[in-house]
């Protein structure tokens, strides 16, 4: 929760600003008429951020930061590198905020693209990378028994290890499609390839993952009953 009434809360920072900036706030809010504060669009939060609202920065960080961090972790397999890339991606988000055109694209899609490009740049520099499975958080699920949680952890780690064996682009496509749960057109926009290419990458990635994990099915609890 950032503030109870985002529109009225936005008014003080608007004092003394040019009319075009005040209009941008109104336009951004108009896209979410009547919604509660938790439903304030990323577009509107970006405008509020540009107008100096620190709570908008906190809300965007809370909303988008974990997604950027999560996808960077999946793609890089390295916690420290994922942190660096998340911070850099969010910095780029802050910098571009005044130039953002509400309604033209999704902020999350833009951020995913930045994260992916930063990951590619990092991989090019490193030419290798390593899997830091210890850094991947265990899945806390108090509703599940300890054996079930252990099995989930083993599956989670096994998937990450298998993902790291995929070619870079296949890994990105599989992570975005099957873990981040994005649509193929969204992934197409993020990876700047055609939808058909996305489908091809995810299909080949899944086949490769199945092949990599096939010999671990007993360990992961997939043995025939």
């Amino acid at each position, binding site marked *: 929760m950032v503030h109870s009434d985002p529109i009225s809360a936005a008014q003080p920072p608007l004092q003394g600003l040019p009319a075009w900036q005040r209009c941008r706030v109104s336009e951004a809010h108009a896209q979410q008429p009547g919604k509660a504060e938790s439903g304030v669009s990323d577009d509107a939060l970006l405008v509020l951020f540009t107008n100096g609202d620190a709570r908008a920065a906190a809300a965007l960080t809370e909303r988008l930061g974990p997604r950027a961090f999560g996808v960077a972790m999946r793609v890089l397999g390295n916690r420290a590198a994922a942190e660096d890339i998340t911070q850099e991606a969010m910095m780029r988000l802050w910098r571009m905020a005044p130039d953002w055109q509400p309604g033209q694209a999704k902020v999350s899609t833009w951020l995913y693209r930045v994260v992916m490009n930063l990951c590619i740049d990092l991989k090019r520099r490193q030419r290798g990378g390593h899997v830091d499975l210890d850094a991947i958080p265990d899945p806390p699920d108090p509703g599940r028994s300890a054996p079930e949680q252990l099995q989930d952890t083993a599956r989670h780690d096994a*998937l990450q290890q298998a993902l790291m064996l995929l070619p870079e682009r296949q890994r990105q496509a599989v992570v975005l499609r099957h873990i981040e749960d994005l649509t193929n057109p969204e992934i197409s926009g993020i990876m700047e390839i055609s939808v058909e290419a996305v489908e091809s990458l995810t299909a080949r990635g899944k086949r490769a993952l199945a092949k990599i994990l096939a010999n671990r099915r007993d360990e992961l609890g997939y*043995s025939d009953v």
Partner: protein
Amino acid sequence: MSDKENGLTDVSGLDDLFAVARNTPVEMPASLTAAILADASQVQELHRQAALQSLPGASRGEQGAAQRLWRQFSAAVGGWPSLGGLAAASLTGLWLGLAPPSFLPDPVASYAAFSSGSELISNQGYDVSLMMSDEVFE
């Protein structure tokens, strides 16, 4: 469970693993959140300064005021092309005054023909008595 029956020998067996990964919450370290918010604060300050500078009438000192005045004048006469034409016309007029063509009277030569100021004034028709009156030299 079909996944267990299929194991991981085909692609559909992966769906369970993906579901586990999707349901695993990703929490950013507090230090990363703090760093991101610190960056945000710095950038917000830059945006604020940029917004203030873009406001019309923002004070930037006397130099800024002089520059704005010059820009207003330049815009009023039509910009740099018009200023160039104005300068060329002025120089042409000055040149015609200093070195006129033969068919025009030469003002410099006519003034140079007189050896003193009083001779020049009397020749030009000024009333010397009026010029020398107390009213003028008070």
